[in-house]
């Protein structure tokens, strides 16, 4: 419970009331104690306050929060659920929701915590506390299931696969590749393992040997699944890296044929066309890529250049404007933080 922040607006509303009424109003006193992290006194004060004002929503909410904060989830859960479901006050709903998610998590009740977290995300999409609790929920659920997998099926190829994926996340690509190889050894025909191994190899390094090794894995994946457009695309990239543009172009073409909406393949094919000054062919591909992925800066940038090179200045300027919009930093708490840094005048 520690760490949940109240909205500034909430305190602007509540604190003056508290200050004025503090001497007489046990609700305000209890809230103030809660705010100061004095959860046990807050609990006692708010229990007392509720006896005097049984219907006070703030007292009920903060008592439930104080109970949750002191390990009393069992006593708090019902109140928190009621307040979250019924309160018309957004701040109270947010606080009770956050506490409710935490209480459900202490009991590993992901089934109960998830709907609350999703609703919170819907109501407070840019709230750092809400996003943090949601992330914690997903991570804890994932951890628990993986732990069960390790306990119940320790020799399965899936354990090697998930180990490899964890190593990848940690940037330990050599270890990831080793685990993928073990998984492939146990289940040579499982889809996606060769692909993941190839990808882990490329993450590791780009020496000629690694490129060759990665290509072998992507080719192996294609043997298992000839319709794998992404494996085709990766081979195209490797060929491009090896300065074999014509062979690469054939692979990109094939990737696109397999998956006509595959944005990266669209881009790759378009770039190959543009490289050979075939702008009339590149432009429709890039326009399609932009339609499919309007937020894709790479697509917009390449479309801008293709328009420019084809002499379509107005269209190029339009794409430039789109790139400008996409590259504008998102509005959000961290961006605000950076803006503040930018506004801070250095001492001179």
């Amino acid at each position: 419970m520690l760490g949940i922040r109240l909205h500034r607006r909430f305190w602007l509303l509540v604190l003056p009331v508290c200050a004025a009424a503090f001497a007489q109003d046990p609700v305000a006193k209890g809230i103030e104690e809660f705010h100061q992290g004095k959860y046990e006194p807050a609990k006692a004060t708010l229990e007392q306050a509720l006896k005097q004002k049984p219907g006070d929503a703030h007292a009920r909410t903060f008592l439930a929060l104080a109970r949750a904060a002191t390990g009393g989830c069992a006593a708090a859960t019902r109140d928190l659920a009621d307040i979250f479901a019924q309160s018309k006050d957004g701040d109270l709903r947010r606080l009770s929701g956050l506490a409710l998610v935490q209480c459900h998590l202490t009991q590993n009740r992901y089934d109960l915590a998830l709907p609350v977290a999703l609703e919170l995300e819907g109501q407070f999409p840019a709230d750092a506390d809400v996003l943090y609790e949601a992330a914690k929920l997903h991570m804890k659920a994932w951890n628990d299931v993986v732990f069960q997998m390790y306990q119940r099926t320790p020799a399965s190829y899936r354990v090697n696969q998930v180990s490899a994926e964890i190593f990848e996340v940690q940037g330990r690509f050599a270890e990831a590749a080793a685990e993928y190889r073990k998984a492939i050894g146990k289940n040579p025909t499982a889809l996606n393992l060769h692909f993941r191994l190839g990808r882990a190899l490329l993450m590791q390094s780009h020496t000629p040997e690694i490129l060759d090794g990665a290509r072998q894995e992507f080719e192996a994946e294609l043997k298992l699944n000839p319709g794998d457009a992404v494996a085709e695309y990766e081979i195209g990239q490797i060929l491009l890296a090896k300065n074999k543009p014509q062979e690469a172009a054939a692979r990109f073409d094939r990737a696109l044929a397999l998956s006509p909406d595959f944005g990266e393949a669209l881009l790759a094919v378009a770039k190959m066309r543009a490289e050979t000054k075939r702008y009339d062919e590149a432009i429709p591909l890039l326009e399609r890529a932009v339609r499919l992925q309007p937020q894709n800066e790479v697509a917009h940038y390449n479309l801008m250049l293709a328009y420019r090179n084809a002499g379509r200045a107005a269209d190029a300027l339009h794409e430039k404007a789109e790139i400008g919009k996409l590259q504008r930093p998102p509005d959000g708490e961290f961006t605000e933080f950076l803006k503040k840094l930018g506004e801070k005048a250095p001492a001179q």
Partner: protein
Amino acid sequence: MKTTTPVLLTVVLVAVVAFATDTPESTEFDNIAAQAGLVHTFPNGGTNSKKYIIETTGSGAAFIDYNNDGRPDIFLLSGDGGSNRLYRNEGTGHFTDITRETGLASDGWNQGVCAGDFDNDGFTDVLVTSWGGLTLYRNISGKRFENVTKQARLEQNRVRYNTGCAFFDYDNDGRLDLFVANYVKFDFATTPKPGENPYCWYRNLPVNCGPRGLPFDRNILYHNNGDGTFSDVSDVSGVSKPDQSYCLSVLTGDFNQDGRTDVFVACDQTPSLLYINRGDGTFSEEAVLRGVAFDENGKAMSGMGVTSADFDGDGKPDIFRTNFSDERETLYRNRGAAEFDDVTLTAGLAHNTRYVGWGCGFFDFDNDGWKDLLLVNGHAFPEVDRLKIDIHYKDRAILYRNNGNGGFTDISQKAGPGVVERHASRGAAFGDYDNDGSIEVVVNNQNETPSLLKAAHKPVGNWIILKLEGVRSNRSAIGARVRLTAGGRTQIDEVRSGGSYLSQNDFRLHFGLGRATRIERVEIEWPSGQRQLERGIGVNRVITIREAEGPIK
């Protein structure tokens, strides 16, 4: 659908190009700094860790013939705790430290250097940029320098992080104006410490903060009033308009070949800038549309150093920029009219992605008539060495041979000890200090003695070095463009101030001529607009050509 490999998409595609192209001759470079007398260490922040960004950007290097004896001297800048130093070229292969007697002793965080005869008195003046301000040194008859910053009205009214600079005559009035890039707004008191915010981390290591997260600043253009003073025309000229880039190195050039000098600025973690000179005293910044702001995917790189040459021999000046590790360097081919394509991959320059590149230059080390490329490296963060990976604080240089077909071959590993020894290098300047037709490179290394790279063996190709002297144009001939035809091939180049990484190359233009024994034509387009044609010039010599007069020596 499964996802593609992010590394392949965003970081690098390894160009495994012709590894073992036969070299026609030896291409070894030695580091002869110690025997040449470049024995001083140039401090520049921490060696094991750096608390502030000011410790990372290092300092420039310059070849400047301050006394007009025809032998380029060496000027090296220092970070805090040391002094800039001028070394006189004695003509014997030895340089003598003459800092004190020439009045160039300094302190503070010196960054960039550029040269130009701003008062047209025939002696090359020097500007030093620093965190803190600018210093304009007027050359007094090739004997000493006088700090004329205040008289020239170049004092700044606040602390600025000035970086790259270049003298150039943007309005073609015969007087050198001045462009100064600015990096960030920085001060020790308010800048967060390593690890204090998400922009103070590198590969899970707390490192100095920035430039991301630090306030932007704006570039500056000073107009030369012709009376020894300058006026800040940044706003009216449009130079100060871009305010979202962290700018480092400045490269001037007539990229759209309209007779007016444009300015490219390499910027760190943000779009690089291309100021197109409109010819009416104003510039429009057009890097995005012209294809030089980003890499081929529209992503901003961490631009550090910059250089230009017509690498593919199509008569148009191209641009090369050094970037950070996990990024490619960037080679932009000029399609004409200053519209560029990123040809890094197809030119074979995409595979060196573990280096942070700084100083760079196109130079024809083998005199075959094709400009080769050298870049010097060294990571921004000494802390990276703790990771024990293939990225190092001190790293080797990279030498690419121009294959003459639009591609380059990386020959670093067999380019001799001068290239492969590791340093935390920053500025690099190119010039033929002994006038033997082979270009040397002086490199400013952080907290070490500098490097002076010299070819171990004289290249077999013929050569010419042109020193241009303006009359109606500025005396330094900065902005003069040369088209030289020899042996049926035409090469172009331009006299420049600034460039590389915060550095100054020798003003004189060097052309390798291969087997050509006679130069058919030298066409010069002076900044004044005057066009001059010289014919029948011999090879393997240094000649001076004065505007409207022809060769004078």
